[in-house]
């Protein structure tokens, strides 16, 4: 058992779905939220339905960045009460918290070493990162998860238009930079 208490990664419930479906409006709203916050990181919850191969985000819930003042440019902390309250709201609705999001105001949407540490505490959850700029041929909104092989792996983000069309706006990369 590790000090962080993370699981063995081989048993029930550890693998995050391969794809994340995100309405175009929600993706745009995340980018807007990150932009409005300026140089501080924003963070929140992704709420929706988890299926075998995909998670569908129905809504996002912004949480206060509880990292100490002066450190929020490069750190975020979601107050656990934000999650507890949202789980209470979602209970019985068929929806659940399927992941978390945060921004890198001056960086790429790629997990940092500190991101990876915390992702290991939440296998099965999708972590969306909104970067400061799009990576070549890929957007600013990228998704990742910590998987049974004990690695952080990219997840495909499918941006869906209001008409239900699915685009391949965000392709995963095959290896970390």
């Amino acid at each position, binding site marked *: 058992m590790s000090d962080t*208490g993370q699981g063995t990664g081989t048993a029930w*419930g550890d693998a995050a779905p391969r794809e994340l479906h995100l309405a175009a409006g929600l993706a745009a709203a995340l980018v807007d939220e990150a932009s409005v916050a300026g140089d501080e990181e924003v963070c929140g919850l992704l709420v929706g339905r988890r299926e075998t191969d995909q998670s569908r985000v129905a809504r996002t819930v912004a949480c206060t960045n509880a990292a100490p003042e002066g450190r929020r440019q490069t750190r975020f902390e979601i107050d656990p009460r934000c999650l507890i309250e949202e789980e209470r709201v979602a209970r019985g609705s068929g929806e659940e918290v399927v992941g978390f999001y945060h921004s*890198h105001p001056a960086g790429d949407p790629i997990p*940092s070493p*500190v991101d990876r540490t915390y992702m290991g*505490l939440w296998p099965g959850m999708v972590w969306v990162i909104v970067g400061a700029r799009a990576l070549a041929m890929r957007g600013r909104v990228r998704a990742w998860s910590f998987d049974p092989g004990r690695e952080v792996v990219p997840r495909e983000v499918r941006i869906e238009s209001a008409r239900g069309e699915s685009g391949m706006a965000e392709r995963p990369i095959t290896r970390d930079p």
Partner: protein
Amino acid sequence: MSVTVRVPSAMRKLTHGRAELEAEGATVRELLDHLGAGNPGLVGRIMGDDGDVREFLNVFVNGADIRYEDNLDTPVSAGDEVSIVPSIAGGAAPPG
């Protein structure tokens, strides 16, 4: 009457997939002792060898962080809800 303990998805393989457990006890510590009997491994994920709550883990009783109450000796009563929440954090900074 018992206390409801909510378990995060990452730990449900230690609770036979259950998100919610019922436990008896007058303090958080007693609840964990009670749960440990039927859910081997769960308590070790919550408490470290020093007997305290692990660094990257949070325990809330009715929305109150037990670190700001009486820690594991925080009293609980029937109908209370205890939530176990690993830390959700990160950011662009390198560790340290």
